[in-house]
């Protein structure tokens, strides 16, 4: 019985650095390892001793593609310690900003990182040679998201306008949004085309049984708020996260694997949100999803490209609603008093739930911090899916199977840079 080893030493088109190792014996998959060798960055450690107000600006540096997500989870956690809850126009502005991030992050992945796989191109540059209009469409959509973030947050990368309690500055009039509003209306039309185009791609038959985990809110598609739920009965407050989930260090990865204590691996991100919250999508999104034949639950990770496209459409739709209904707040931020305590924040980054927990002393200094990014929560599930994916494709030539495995990993849009922010380092000297 022959043994094959497939090694992809450097995964292209995922954020950060990672490698894949699969070992087979005959037709049986013996071992699968998603190896992360991005250097850990110790954010949880150097947050200690910093002022609580610095948390959004420091944690935004964990990721250049989803800084808003880190800022939102951080400020929610700090606000829970101070006993305030941002509501009204300030809450709406936070949702609006998050919509901008979803648009630009999801669009980048759909068009520049994922689409080449389905059309047999090495990368988006090659795709653009034969399909310039498709790529141009994606770039216009991404630009709309970037401009939304720049307008509200000061700049696209590492935004500067988010603070505990709200913002440093907010638009003073509804008509200030007019230029952006027009762009988002055009973006919404492009998003509809994106859904229809994504749904026209060819997908392997690869339905999996997942435990989907996401936020759920009584009234809205989740962005900043909600309880943590799953399709297998989990329904907890965000404060209970660590009672049900734990991070485990695995030898082959710098990133910690997060698992459900009682059931192991689970999936966060667009498929989870969509499958758990379909009836909270806007009517337009539900209509378009039905039109393209996407059911209210999606369990094929290759079809995540369609789900991301639906979420781009939702983000455009929701952004337009917020801008059209905008009423300037009395103040750009809520006042608060420094308190000591433990605070929790959990918001829906483009890739899934992002959990923050901070302990703050009476001086307002951070005593300790815990950050669990979505990609570290998905890693175990990605390995599980690869094990299932490789088995029926085992007879493919190695080059083809390697390419398919890479594509399978890209289904999850892993942000490996986020997932390696922390590691307990033990040095053992063997002499």
């Amino acid at each position, binding site marked *: 019985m022959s043994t094959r080893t497939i090694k992809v030493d450097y995964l292209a088109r995922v954020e950060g650095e990672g490698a894949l190792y699969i070992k087979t014996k005959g037709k049986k998959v013996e071992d699968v390892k998603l190896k992360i060798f991005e250097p850990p960055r110790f954010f949880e450690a150097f947050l200690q001793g910093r002022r609580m107000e610095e948390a959004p600006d420091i944690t935004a540096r964990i990721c250049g*593609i989803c800084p808003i997500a880190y800022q939102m989870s951080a400020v929610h956690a700090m606000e829970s310690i101070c006993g305030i809850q941002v509501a009204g126009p300030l809450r709406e502005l936070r949702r609006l900003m998050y919509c901008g991030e979803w648009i630009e992050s999801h669009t980048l992945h759909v068009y520049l990182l994922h689409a080449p796989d389905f059309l047999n191109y090495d990368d988006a*540059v090659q795709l*653009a040679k034969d399909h310039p209009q498709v790529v141009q469409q994606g*770039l216009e959509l991404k630009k709309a998201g970037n401009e939304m973030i720049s307008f509200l947050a000061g700049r*696209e990368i590492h935004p500067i306008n988010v603070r505990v309690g709200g913002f440093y500055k907010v638009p003073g009039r509804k008509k200030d949004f007019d230029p952006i509003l027009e762009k988002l209306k055009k973006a919404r039309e492009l998003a509809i085309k994106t859904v229809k185009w994504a749904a026209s791609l060819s997908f392997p038959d690869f339905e999996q049984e997942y435990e989907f985990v996401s936020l759920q809110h009584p009234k809205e598609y989740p962005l900043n708020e909600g309880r943590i739920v799953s399709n297998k009965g989990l329904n907890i407050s965000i404060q209970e996260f660590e009672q049900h989930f734990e991070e485990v260090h695995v030898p082959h990865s710098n990133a910690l694997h997060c698992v459900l204590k009682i059931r192991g691996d689970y999936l966060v991100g667009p498929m989870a949100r969509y499958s758990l919250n379909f009836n909270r999508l806007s009517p337009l999104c539900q209509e378009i999803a039905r039109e393209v034949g996407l059911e209210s639950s999606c369990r094929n990770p290759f079809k995540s490209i369609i789900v991301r496209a639906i979420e781009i459409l939702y983000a455009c739709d929701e952004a337009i609603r917020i801008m059209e209904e905008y009423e300037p707040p009395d103040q750009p931020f809520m006042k608060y008093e420094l308190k000591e305590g433990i605070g929790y924040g959990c918001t829906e980054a483009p890739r899934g739930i992002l959990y923050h927990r901070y302990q703050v002393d009476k001086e307002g200094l951070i005593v300790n911090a815990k950050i669990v990014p979505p990609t570290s929560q998905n890693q175990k599930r990605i390995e599980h899916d690869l094990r299932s994916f490789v088995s029926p494709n085992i007879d493919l030539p190695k080059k083809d199977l390697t390419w398919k495995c890479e594509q399978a990993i890209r289904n999850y849009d892993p942000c490996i840079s986020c997932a390696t922010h922390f590691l307990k380092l033990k040095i053992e000297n063997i002499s």
Partner: protein
Amino acid sequence: MTSVSGSKRVIGIGNEFRGDDGVGPLLVRQLRQRKDFEKIEFLECSGDTTVLFEKWNPRDEVILVDVICSGGQAGSIYKFDALSAPLPSDLFPSVSTHVLDVSRSIELARSLGRLPKKLLVFGIEGKSFQTDSKLNLKVKKAMEKVTEEIRKEFVDYA
């Protein structure tokens, strides 16, 4: 200012807080202050280089200045005519897989028919990219030479 014949633009690419990676933006800021370069438009690009082509129009003449990270001697200067051939991608580092580096960004522009009338790229070999470090002296020296090259292209022959 954009005329019927297009503008002359110099775009400095890089992060000023990352040592020699800041050579592009810092050069641009120096030249912006000079009267002899007053007819040139100067731009900085410190973030996403994926859509560089949005910083120029088809009739423009453009010079890009960026750091090179090839392991060569600090301060070495490379000059490329990006209209005639793709840039060697191994010279221009990619800072993230979520953005296109300069060489691939130019190829994307080429695929989409978005190249300007003239596109020169100056690369200066950097040595240190540590956070908040100063420019290497040889890199600083190279900035002077690149300034003269830009003058020859955009001022002396204007």
